[in-house]
C-alpha cells in the first residue's frame, strides 16, 4: 500500500465480554464511528483478540481493501503487538494500525456512568480514526544480535542465568558489585524446603560458573554506563577496587540485583538491646556455627519471633508488600532452635507457608512445640527493655488474652526491600518500579520476566520478594528469553525514529541539546549545515521534534499532524455534538 492512497479505515469495537460492553454501549459506538471521515467499515465483536476476531480483521482488510485499521478494545500496552501482527498477516504495514483503549481508560474507570462512558468512547474512537487516516507505513528493520549476554548481580538468580546461557553455548558476563558470589543466600545456614546447606548451593553454582569457559565473572564491579538498543547494547563496567573501566558489547541483559534485608530501625526496640536481632542476622549466626545470645554469648533459652517487620504495613510506602520468604524461614529456624531452647514463641499475623514443602516446615514447628500466637494487627506487640531484659506484651487475638513473655532473644522477621542502588539500576536500564520499589515486569501475569525495555529481562528478588526456588526459576526463564534472542541472531526494531527535513532545518542546535542520547548532530551536507539523526542511536522519544522551532523534525508514527488531528477530532466535535455538555 502506498502512502499516497486515500485512507480506508476499518473500525473494530470489542465487547471484551462484559468488560467493555458492560459499561459502554459498543454497538452504538460502532454505529457512530461508521459516520466518521474515511471510515469504510465499522463493526463490533465479542473478543477482537480471539482467533475469530483476528480472522474478522484480516477478512475485512482483504474484502474491502481497508488500508488503516482501528481496534477499540483494551490497553495497547498489552495487545498492540498482537493486532499489528494481524494486520501484517493481511498484507498491511504494521504501522497502519491504531488502538483505542476503551477498557482501562473507559469502562473500568467509569463503571457507574454508562452514558458518559459511551460518549468518551465515541470521542476516543473519533480521535483515533483521525490519526489513523494520517498514519504512514514504515519500513520494518532488523538488526543483528550481539551473541553475548550481560547478567547484573551475582546472587543465585544471576548465577543461574549466567550458567544456563553458558551451558547453552553462548557467552555471558556476570557483573557483581561485591567481592563474592552467592548474594544474600551466601549468608544463610540451611534452606527450606529441603534443609540443603546454603553453602552447598552457592559452592555448586559458583564453581560451575568459574569453570565455564563461556562465563566471565567480574567481581567488585558495577555497570556505570549503558547505551544502545536491543541486540546491540554498549556497556561500561567499572571495577570499584582498581577503578578500571572496561567496555563491552552485549545483545541482551538480565537484571538480577536482588534485595536488601530491611534494617528495622524504630521497630520493636531494634537497636536498643543487642539481644533484639533480625532474622537475617540470626541466619548468619547459624551459618557461622551456633546461635548465641549476643549480650551473654550463651545459647538463648527463651526466644521470640515477630513476623512481618517492615512488611504488610498498609499505607506505608515501600512496606505494603508481603516479603514472601519470612513465614517459612521463621518457622524453620524456630523449630530448629527448640532443640536447645526451652521456649520458642512465634508471633504472627497470618502464616504464609504457601509453597511446595512449606506446610511440612510449618507442621514440624508445631510438632516441636513452638508456640504460635496470632497478634493483633491493629495493636501490635509492645517491647520494653529494662535492666532485667526484654519484656514482650501483646494481645493474642485467638484467645483474646493479653500475654507477656520475657525472651532472652527477640528475632524480627525483617522484610525484603529493594537493594541499595536500585534507583541507579532503574535509571541505567530504563526500568519502571512497582509501589514496593521492585522492578516492573512487562506484564504481571503472562510476561513476568521481560520488561518494557526491549532486550532487558529481570529475575529473582529484583522483581519482587521471593524464595531461592522461585528466584532461580525466574532466572532460568529469563535466560531462555536471552538465548532466544541470541539464537535467532537478529531482531526487529521499531522504525519510530526522528528524521530531519533538510529544507526546514535552520541548524539552530536545539535538537542537539535536547536529545538524551546524542542521536542528533549538525553536519554539513552539500556545504549547508543541517541536523542529522543517527537512527541507530535514536530511541524515538520525540523530545527533539517538540523543541524544534522550525518544525524540521518529523517523528515517524507520532508526527505533528497525527497529534493535531486527534486534538481537532476531539474538540471540533465538542461544538458539533455539544459533547462537552449534557
Amino acid at each position, binding site marked *: 500500500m502506498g502512502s499516497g492512497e486515500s485512507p480506508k479505515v476499518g473500525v473494530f469495537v470489542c465487547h471484551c465480554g462484559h468488560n467493555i460492553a458492560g459499561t459502554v454501549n459498543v454497538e452504538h459506538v460502532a454505529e457512530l464511528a461508521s459516520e466518521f471521515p474515511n471510515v469504510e467499515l465499522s463493526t463490533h465483536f465479542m473478543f477482537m483478540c480471539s482467533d*475469530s476476531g483476528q480472522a474478522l480483521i484480516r477478512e475485512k482488510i482483504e474484502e474491502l481493501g481497508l488500508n488503516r485499521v482501528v481496534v477499540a478494545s483494551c490497553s495497547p500496552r498489552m495487545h498492540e503487538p498482537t493486532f499489528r501482527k494481524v494486520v501484517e498477516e493481511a498484507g498491511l504495514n504494521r504501522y497502519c494500525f491504531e488502538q483505542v483503549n476503551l477498557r482501562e481508560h473507559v469502562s473500568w474507570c467509569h463503571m457507574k456512568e454508562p452514558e458518559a462512558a459511551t460518549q468518551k468512547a465515541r470521542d476516543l474512537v473519533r480521535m483515533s480514526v483521525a490519526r489513523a487516516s494520517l498514519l504512514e507505513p514504515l519500513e520494518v528493520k532488523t538488526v543483528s544480535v550481539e551473541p553475548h549476554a550481560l547478567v547484573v548481580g551475582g546472587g543465585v538468580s544471576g548465577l543461574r542465568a549466567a550458567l544456563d546461557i553458558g551451558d547453552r553455548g553462548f557467552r555471558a558476563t556476570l557483573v557483581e558489585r561485591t567481592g563474592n558470589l552467592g548474594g544474600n543466600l551466601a549468608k544463610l545456614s540451611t534452606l527450606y524446603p529441603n534443609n540443603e546447606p546454603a553453602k552447598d548451593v552457592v559452592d555448586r553454582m559458583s564453581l560451575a560458573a568459574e569453570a565455564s569457559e563461556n562465563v566471565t565473572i567480574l567481581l567488585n564491579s558495577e555497570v556505570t554506563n549503558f547505551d544502545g538498543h536491543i541486540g546491540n547494547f554498549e556497556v561500561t563496567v567499572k571495577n570499584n577496587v582498581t577503578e578500571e573501566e572496561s567496555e563491552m558489547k552485549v545483545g541482551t541483559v538480565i537484571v538480577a540485583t536482588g534485595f536488601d534485608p530491611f534494617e528495622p530501625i524504630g521497630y520493636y526496640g531494634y537497636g536498643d538491646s543487642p539481644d533484639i536481632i533480625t532474622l537475617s542476622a540470626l541466619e548468619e549466626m547459624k551459618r557461622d556455627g551456633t546461635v548465641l545470645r549476643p549480650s551473654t554469648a550463651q545459647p538463648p533459652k527463651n526466644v521470640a519471633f515477630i513476623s512481618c517487620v517492615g512488611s504488610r504495613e498498609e499505607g506505608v510506602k515501600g512496606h505494603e508488600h508481603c516479603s514472601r520468604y519470612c513465614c517459612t524461614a521463621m518457622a524453620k529456624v524456630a523449630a530448629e532452635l527448640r532443640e536447645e531452647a526451652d521456649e520458642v514463641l512465634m508471633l504472627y499475623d497470618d502464616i504464609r507457608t504457601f509453597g511446595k514443602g512449606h506446610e511440612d516446615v510449618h507442621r514440624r514447628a508445631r510438632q516441636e512445640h513452638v508456640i504460635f500466637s496470632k497478634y493483633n494487627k491493629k495493636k501490635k506487640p509492645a517491647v520494653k527493655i529494662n535492666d532485667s531484659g526484654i519484656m514482650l506484651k501483646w494481645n493474642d487475638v485467638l484467645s483474646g488474652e493479653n500475654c507477656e513473655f520475657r525472651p532472652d532473644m527477640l528475632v524480627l522477621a525483617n522484610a525484603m526491600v529493594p537493594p541499595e542502588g536500585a534507583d541507579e539500576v532503574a535509571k541505567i536500564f530504563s526500568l519502571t518500579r512497582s509501589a514496593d520499589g521492585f522492578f516492573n515486569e512487562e506484564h504481571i501475569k503472562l510476561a513476568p520476566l521481560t520488561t518494557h525495555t526491549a532486550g532487558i529481562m529481570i529475575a529473582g528478588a529484583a522483581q519482587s520478594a521471593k524464595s531461592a526456588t522461585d528466584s532461580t526459576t525466574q532466572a532460568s526463564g529469563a535466560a531462555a528469553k536471552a538465548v532466544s534472542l541470541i539464537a535467532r541472531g537478529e531482531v526487529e526494531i521499531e522504525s519510530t525514529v526522528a528524521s530531519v527535513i533538510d529544507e526546514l532545518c535552520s541548524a539552530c542546535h536545539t535538537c542537539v541539546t535536547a536529545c538524551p542520547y546524542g542521536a542528533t548532530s549538525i553536519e554539513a551536507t552539500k556545504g549547508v549545515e543541517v541536523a542529522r539523526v543517527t537512527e541507530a542511536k535514536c530511541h524515538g522519544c520525540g523530545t527533539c521534534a517538540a523543541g524544534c522551532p522550525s518544525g524540521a523534525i518529523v517523528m515517524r508514527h507520532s508526527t505533528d499532524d497525527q497529534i493535531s488531528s486527534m486534538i481537532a477530532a476531539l474538540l471540533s466535535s465538542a461544538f458539533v455534538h455539544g459533547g462537552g455538555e449534557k
Partner: protein
Amino acid sequence: MTEAEKLATLSQMSPTQTALVIGGGVSGMQASLDLADQGFNVVLVEKTPSIGGAMAMLDKTFPTLDCSACILTPKLSEVARHPNIELLTYSEVTGISGQAGNFKVKVLRKARKVLEDKCSGCGDCVEHCPIEIPNEFDQGLGFRRAVYVGFPQNTPLVYTIDDENCIKCEMCVKACEREAIDLAMKDEEVEIPVGAIVVATGFELFDVSKYPRLGYGEYKNVINALEYERLINAAGPTAGHLLRMSDGKIPKSIGFVQCVGARDVTNQVPYCARVCCMYGIKNAVMAKELQPDNVKNVTVYYADIRAYGKGFEEFYNMAQTRFGIEFIRGRVGEVAENPKTRNIEIRVENTETGEYLQHEHELVVLCPGILPPKELRVIASELGVDVDSDGYLFVEHPASNPVDTKVPGVFVCGCAEGPKDIPDSVAAGSAAAMRASITLAKGGEV
C-alpha cells in the same frame, strides 16, 4: 497437511532438534514458545481438544483483575501459529523409552472424527446434532452437543465429536459443507523421536464432595470456585450473569469458604494449594464489581490469608477497603440449607473473637485446593522420575535447579511440580524451556 502426512513427518523428527511438551496449559504453552523461539521443534501434546488449560476457564485473574481470556487468547494463537510447534490436541502420551538426546515417545491420537485439515470451525454442524450433554468446560453448568468445542477460543478451532455420546445419526456429516466429518475415524498411534521432555500436566481440582458436611452436591446453592468462574464469565453458560442455581436469582449475600481440600492431613492434602486465597478474594471482589447494587454482603471464611505474591497484599487490602469484603477467620464447620428459601447457613467459629456464628448466605462458593492429575504417576513411571509425598514431580535441588527432575533431559514446570499461580507457572515454563534447550544443544550429552 493431511493427518497421514502429519504423522509421517512426526515419526521422522530429528531428536536433537525436537522437544516434547506434555500438557498445553499456560506453563506448557510458555515452554513450547520459548523452545520454538530458539529454533527448536516442539511437539506439544494436550489430552483435551484445546490448549489453554485451567486458565482458559477462568474469568478474571488476580491481582489485577485482568480478564483471563483477554490475555490468554493471543498466546493461544501464538502457539497455534508458530511454525516450529506441532500441536497434537486430543492426544495422549502412552509410552516413553530411550534417554536424553534420544527418547522415543508413543503418542495416541484419539479419533476426533473431524479432520483437522478440513474443519474451518464454522460450527454449522452443531445445531444439527440432536444430543445435548453437560459441557465439561463449563463445569457441567452449560450444555454442549456431541459435536462441540468447549469454548469459543478453542485452539485449534476444530470441532470434536465425542464418541461416547454420538449416536451416529450422521446429521452433522450432512450439515458440514466442507466434508470434514469422518465418523469412521480410528485412533492412531505414532512414535516420535525427541531429545528432551517437559512435563506440564498441571493440576486437577479437589473434589469438594469429599466433605459431605459442606453440602456440595446436596444443596443447589453450594457450588465450587471453578463453577463460579464459569458462571460469571461472559462466554460462560449464563453469559456472565451472576445468579444462583436454585432459582436463577442474583444472590444478595455470598459466602466464600477457603481451604476446602487443602492443608488437611486427614484428607491426604496436607499442603497449601497456593492459589485459593487469592482466587477466593478475586471472586469475592468480582461479585461486588458485577452487581454493586444487588450484592450486599460478601464474606470470605479463611484460616490464614496467604497474599504472598507481587501485588497480592495490596489487592487483599483493596478488597477490604474499596470493595468492603468481609473476612472472617475460621474453618467452616458445616453448612445447612433453609428448605424454604434455599439459602445456605454457614456455621463457623470466628477464631478471632471466639464467637460461634451462624451466617445465612444466598450462595456459598467452596474454594477447593488442587491435586496432581491422576495420570501423573503413570507418566512419571514411564519417564522413571520420582513423585514426592504429595504426588507431584520430585525436584532434587529446588534452590539451584528448580525445574530439573532426576532423569537427565526431563524437566517439569507449572503445577505438575506443585501448585502455582499463573506468573509462577509461566516463569517455570520458560525455565523448563531453557533447561531443555541445553540438553538439545548438547545433543543429549549431560
